[in-house]
Structures are given as C-alpha cells and as structure tokens.
C-alpha cells in the first residue's frame, strides 16, 4: 500500500479491534473473586467472569451505549474513565483490576497503573506491543506511522496517545515496584507465542497480557 492511498483512504470510524485477549485474561482470574474491569465495553468479559467463575464483577465504561448494554446484563457499571474515576476507589477494594487494550489510550498511564495496583491485589493489563517487528518495519522501511489489523487508525485520529512496547511496560512495572506474576505475548491471531522470553515477546508479540501484583514487603 503506497503512502498516497493511505492518506486518501476513506476513514470511517475504525472497527473495534477484536478482543482476542478476553479468554486469556479470564484465565488469570480466580473464581469467586472481586473484579473491576476498567473500560469494560459492552461487558463481554465481565459477563464471562460472572457466569463462568462466579466473580463479583464491576466495570467502568466511557460510552453511554456500553454502559446501557452492561446495565441491561445486570452488571454494575459506572460511566467514567480510567484517568479520572479510579481515584474514588478505596485501597484493596478488588482482587483484580483489569485494563484491556486501554492503557495506551489513557492520559496518565503511570498513574492509572498505580491506581490499579492500589485498588486491586492484582492488576491485569493487555496492550498492543509497539515493538512488534511489523510495526518497527513500517516506521523503519515505510517511514510512516504504523497501521495494523489490530491498530487500524490513522495517526491523527487514533485514540491511542501513549503507545509502548512490551519492554517499556516491563520497565514501568519495575519502576512501580510491581511484581510480574504472569506474562503472555499473543500473535496477530490472538494465540499465545510458543516461546516465552521477553525479547521474543517484544519482537514477535502483537499484544502483551500481564498480571502484576504489589510486591510483598
């Protein structure tokens, strides 16, 4: 695809990226626990957790449509966003605080992650890996901002303002004194990579899914 077609391409609202990570995230949650899903969309993950694992499921969602869908499913969801509404929750209110595909769209990713680790015993974060070879290649060889199937937006209309690589995320977790309990990198089809070494994740993973915990002192 040439740069010209990229610029002139019709740009309807891009479809939401497939939430390939939901099952994987659900797998990281213990049954009958308390979960807060930040940016819970239509409540698909919360419902999965409530029905399959007996989880006390709560959510935060920005869109009116999403909140209404959740409320109609009997889920407890408040309209709000990660940047402004996590501060109101008390310490240790949840076993898990989940942030799926949203970290890169927050204004203050570090504060958001800090709040998640404060509110929850564990934080589960999934995010697109900007270190993937295909993305590196688009900048290095193509000379333009990367677009992939999972990240279809043009640079000037993307909600994603704080991209990071898996390597960056691991460094941030270290800065926050958080322990990485589990980590998985997914390929473009949402399947976990066969090899699990951080440099392999960072180069071949399209998404990273990590479960963090506050370090025990």
């Amino acid at each position, binding site marked *: 695809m040439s740069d010209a077609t990229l610029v002139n391409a019709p740009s309807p609202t891009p479809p939401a990226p497939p939430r390939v990570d939901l099952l994987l995230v659900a797998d990281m949650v213990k049954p009958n626990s308390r979960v807060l899903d930040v940016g819970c969309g239509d409540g698909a993950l919360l419902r999965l957790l409530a029905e399959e694992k007996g989880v006390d499921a709560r959510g935060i969602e920005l869109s009116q449509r999403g*909140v209404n869908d959740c409320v*109609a499913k*009997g889920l*407890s969801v*408040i*309209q709000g966003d990660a940047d402004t509404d996590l501060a109101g929750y008390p310490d240790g209110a949840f076993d898990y605080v989940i942030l799926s595909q949203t970290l890169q769209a927050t204004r203050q990713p570090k504060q958001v992650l800090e709040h998640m680790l404060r509110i929850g015993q564990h934080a589960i974060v999934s995010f697109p890996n900007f270190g993937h070879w295909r993305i590196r290649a688009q900048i290095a060889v193509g000379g333009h901002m990367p677009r992939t199937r999972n990240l279809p937006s043009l640079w000037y209309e993307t909600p994603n303002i704080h991209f990071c690589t898996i390597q960056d995320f691991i460094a941030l977790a270290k800065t926050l004194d958080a322990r990485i309990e589990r980590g998985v990198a997914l390929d473009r089809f949402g399947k976990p990579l066969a090899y699990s070494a951080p440099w392999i994740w960072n180069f071949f993973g399209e998404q990273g899914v990590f479960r963090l915990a506050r370090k025990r002192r």
Partner: protein
Amino acid sequence: MTVPVNKTAGLREVDAPHSLVAHFGPDRPLAMDAGAELSPLRIAYQTYGVLNADKSNAILVCHALTGDQHVANEHPVTGKPGWWQTMVGPGRPIDTDRYFVISSNVVGGCMGTTGPASLNPSTGRPYGLELPMVTIRDMVRAQAMLIDHLGIETLFCVAGGSMGGMQVLQWAATYPERVFAAMPIATAAKHSSQNIAFHEVGRQAVMADPDWRKGRYLEEGQIPTKGLAVARMAAHITYLSDEALQNKFGRKLQDRTAPTFSFDAEFQIENYLRYQGMSFVDRFDANSYLYMTRACDYFDLAADYGGSLALAFKGAKTRFCVVSFNSDWLYPTSASRAIVHALNAGGASVSFVDIETDRGHDAFLLNVPDFIATSRGFLDAAARARGLPPARTR
C-alpha cells in the same frame, strides 16, 4: 387577588383526596427529626398493579418537590396525565403489569397527606407554620409506616428524581435491608449553597406577599398567589437548561411583531413563566411549598454519618442505578458522581449513567430514550436477580 379557600380545587385534596388514605392514630405517631411527634397522621397514596403472593414485587416511587402521588393516573385537579407516565405504566420500565407500584404524598404535602394545610386537631384550625419542620428522613419514615401498613417487608425497588431521589438515598441509608434496588435520579446527597439560595428566593417571594398573613392565610380566606407564582417562576428556570430555553423561546416576542416598550409580557419566555406560575397556584399550597423547600435544604445525608457519605452506604446489599443528565445544572452530574464514589467506597453494587440531553433537570420527567432504556435494563436485570417472572410479551 383574593381566592376564598374552599373554592380552590387543589386545596380540596388536602381533606378529601382522590386517593387511598392510610390513617395512623395516636398509638402510631410519626417521630420527627425536629423533635416533635406528629399525630394523627394521614398518608394519601396511589397503587398500580398487583402485589404478588410473596410480596416481592413492590416498587415505591418517591415524588419531587411539587409532585404528588398521582404518578400514572389523570391528576384530580389539573386533569393532566400522571407526572411519570413515561416511566410507570403497562410495558413501561416500571411495568405495572409486573410490579406493584406505590406512591404516596410526602409529609408536609398538600394532596391528602398531613401537611400545613391540614387541620391541627389540637387547635381546630389549619397547622400553618405550627406543623413541625419536615425533613427528607421524616418523609421516608412516614413512607416506611405506609409500607408496614401494606404488609410489605422488602421493596423490590425505590425510585425517584430530584427530591424523590433524596428520599431514595435516605431509604437506602436508613432501611438498607428493606431496599433490594434503588434508583436515585437527577439528585444530590446534600443541598448545595446554590440550591439553598434558589429555595430561599422562593420562600421570600411567598412570605413577602401580604396575603400570606404570616402563614395564616387559610383562616383569613386569602391565598398568597402572587408570591407563590413568583416562587414557581424562579424555580422553573432552574429546571430547564439555557440551551433548551434558547431553542424553545429565544428572544421571540409574544403576540406582537415589535416591542411595545412596556412591562407587559413582551417576550414568549415571560409569558411562559407567568403561565407556569399562575397554573401552579391552582394546585399547590404556599405553606407546603415552604416546607418542601426547607426539607431539601436540610438534606445532607453524610452529616448523619460523621460527614462520610461512604459510611451511609457501608455494606449495603442494595443494587443502585444512579442517573444524571448532562444539562442539569440544578443537581449536576458532579453531585451524582459524588454519590457514586461514596457507593463504590462503601463497596455497594452501583451502576451510573450520565444521560446526554439538552432538557436540563426536567429531563427525568420527559421521554428521554437513553434514560428510559437504562431504567428498563436495570430493572429487568434486578427483577431476574430477585427471581421475578419475566415481562409478558406484549
């Protein structure tokens, strides 16, 4: 203007309401926050639908400042449809085919429940300002007496907007085990300084009317219609958004093509407000208006819990659905968010939506589709959790 007391249809409802009435004798007085006991007590109420065998499908609807128990039937004074017909009725979110809906006139009201226009049995004349000051909690205590009287232990839901929403919050705080689900709408956990200020303007307008007669106008055959109308006009502005007023009236002139350089109702908005004021005095008692506004002003739920709203809801099992409207500047979204944060901090199950609309505070009374959809979704899900049978297919 002088209106002989017995000629106003509105005040006839005080003694002979077109409603069911529950009587509470000297053995069951209402203990009030002001320290007094109110007895005898009458509560005028309406019901819709049928109470199921295990009494698990009752919804209490709480009315706003100048509302009443006529939620979903023609109003006996104005002949207009019930004030919440968008929400309550067959097939509506508060579905009278599924739920047993109860709505009562609040204490201090003027539609049949004991209020300042009711006869004080110890003096043989209307209470006037001799009625002890009424609080939101007094209203809720009286409603609990009615619910006991109806033999209902737990309400499936308590719902209401504005002052009705304050009662919902008070219900959830005072009787958490009796409220399965709660819908506080377009409301606040306390009255702000601005809220109190607007109410004070209204009260001063009433009390400045020479026909108010220090609150004893009923015996003297007077009604402070002008003061009450001005109070209503000022209040009505707070119920609408700037945008809605601009869209509806703008600077349009009333029945003329050019200004007449007079103090007539030159602009349509003036004419509209005057109409709202004058039609209000036909159905509402001026002293009741003073009591209702005062009850709201005193409302500060957190104050009863050491200043912590979260403590008011600590450990609550109730499912909450908090709703605000983004153009409501009387009880703004931030007031609802404060409730939501407190509920979250208290560990309660809470949903919250801020509905986008230009209709202002009054939006909760209107057919705002997103609001109706949210309410329906919440109540349907709560009904499933309560084990109530699904809605009949219509």
